[in-house]
């Protein structure tokens, strides 16, 4: 027991350093090397530091600001929309009984399992004149994640006693008023869980963004990373690829380290009942 007191922390630190530390270290040091030195990425420190050159080049060549704008433009309304519409529907699905509601609920959550029909989504968006537009992208994301929101929120609403709604009802509040003033504030934990997951998925999504936004004016951070890395095939610009990787990952990592307790409890709060 006495030995394991020192062995355990040592094993934990060593494992963290090797399993996570080394890959992240490789990305960091390579992002500060010259193109020639980064040709074969390794774990050594840069002989000549090219930190500023690489990052400013990744910033312009990878159109970081435009990608950041595109990512936010698509993510924020999608997440807000899917949470508002999804919670509204979940409240009704959770409170009303009957066969029709059971069928609707089953249909609504089937999207958690079923893969989105990514190719025909493009066809549909063309017919609706929404192809390559941020609005089309938002609607596709909302369609994809509506099931997840309805699944999480309906389960949560069922744990809230109906009595809390009744006081407001006796004061003459109408259904929408009750939903906004009474129910929505109580949904905060589950909405936090859904927000974290959906933001993570949309922020890092590249597959669906390819099909919907690819070839258009708008872009996102992952799409730009892919185009920087694709030019790596013939230019060997690992230094720029990793500068971009660091630039793109840093915001989420900083947010996480600052708010880690709330994020972790947010994830587990809604996921495991």
């Amino acid at each position, binding site marked *: 027991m006495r030995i394991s007191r020192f062995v355990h922390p040592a094993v934990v630190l060593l*494992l*963290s350093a090797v*399993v*996570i*530390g*080394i*890959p*992240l270290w490789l*990305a960091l040091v390579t992002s500060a090397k010259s193109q020639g030195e980064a040709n*074969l*990425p*390794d*774990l050594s420190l840069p002989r000549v530091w090219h930190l500023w050159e690489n990052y400013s080049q990744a910033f312009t060549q990878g159109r970081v600001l435009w990608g950041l704008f595109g990512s936010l433009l698509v993510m924020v309304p999608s997440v807000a929309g*899917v949470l508002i519409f999804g919670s509204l*529907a979940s*409240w*009704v*699905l959770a*409170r*009303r*009984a009957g066969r029709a509601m059971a069928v609707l609920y089953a249909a*609504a959550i089937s999207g958690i*399992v*079923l*893969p*989105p*029909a*990514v*190719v*025909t*989504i493009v*066809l*549909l968006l063309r017919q609706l004149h929404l192809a390559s537009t941020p609005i089309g992208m938002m*609607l*596709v994301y*909302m*369609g994809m994640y*509506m*099931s997840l929101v309805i699944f999480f929120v309906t389960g949560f609403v069922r744990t809230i006693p109906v009595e809390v709604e009744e006081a407001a*009802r006796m004061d003459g509040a109408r*259904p929408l008023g009750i939903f906004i003033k009474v129910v929505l504030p109580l949904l905060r934990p589950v909405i936090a869980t859904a927000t974290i997951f959906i933001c*993570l998925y949309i*922020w*890092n999504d*590249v597959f669906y963004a390819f*099909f919907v936004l690819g070839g258009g004016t708008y872009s996102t951070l992952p799409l730009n*990373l892919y185009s920087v890395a694709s030019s790596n095939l013939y230019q060997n610009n*690992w230094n720029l*690829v990793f500068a971009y*990787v660091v630039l*793109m*990952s840093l915001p989420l*990592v900083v947010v*996480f380290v600052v708010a880690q307790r709330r994020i*972790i409890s947010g*994830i*587990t709060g809604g*996921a*495991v*009942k």
Partner: protein
Amino acid sequence: MISSLPTGRPPRRAVLYPSWFLAPAFAVLAVFFFLPTVFNFVYAFTDWSAFHNDIRPVGLANVEAVLSNGALLSSLRITIVYAGLVAIMQTGFGLGLALLLERDTRINRFARVVFFIPVLMSALAVGYTFQALLKPDGPVNGFLGALAGQDVTIPWLGSTTWTVVTVAFVNSWKWMGLAMVIFLAGLKTISADVLEAARIDGAGRWRTFRSVRFPLIAPAVTFNVATALLGSFNGFDTILATTGGGPAQQTEVLDIYIFRVYGNGLFAQATTMSLALLLLVTLLAFPVIGYLRKRERVL
């Protein structure tokens, strides 16, 4: 509950919870999720492509095409192998980490944060990092070479047999932090009384884990296996960034195939594969999730 309202006439649920609240969510779902899914069953049997404007039905020609060039069966096989490997590794690594970092010490709390960082990174970024690490003359082989005392040149990403395992490992590396967090939450829900009872009955650490704690975290196992399976049936980013589907298309899962063929303008063939993915998930995922849930109830 409703009849306890003192208004005399019990209000109907349809009035208290109006049906139109369902409308926006179901409209989005119907148009942007279910309609494209229905389209899958139509356009998989047409000649829709980038090379002409009209779209005509062609019967089973696309199915025959992807069957005869072997793409359908090979992509299906690789997708199933990849998803199975990810589900096993991701859940296994996550459980191992959760058990290792279970006690609430400072170092463990720090390590949990560290292991969660890859979850936040884009899978593309993770893939590029491992592509660099796993080059034949890259750092991993260099390290193994130093240990072995001779040159090691394992083609981690260049083997037609084993690369699918490497890629599944990279994807599991990215997501194991999430599995860990879910398992930690599951382990926390086990009451101290139960563990105390097991200890009094003379159960050792392994026995306690095997017979008490592992069965009690069944919901966490379900969640992790199900999300890993579903996520990797749709696996794309990690593979794109590490191998792009190679070598010799031996890591070309369905989504990579769809992406490549769509890029070549063969939209109907891509749709056929998308339909195949839909059917694969329907046939495999529902029974697996059903089995896991039943296991939760039995235990």
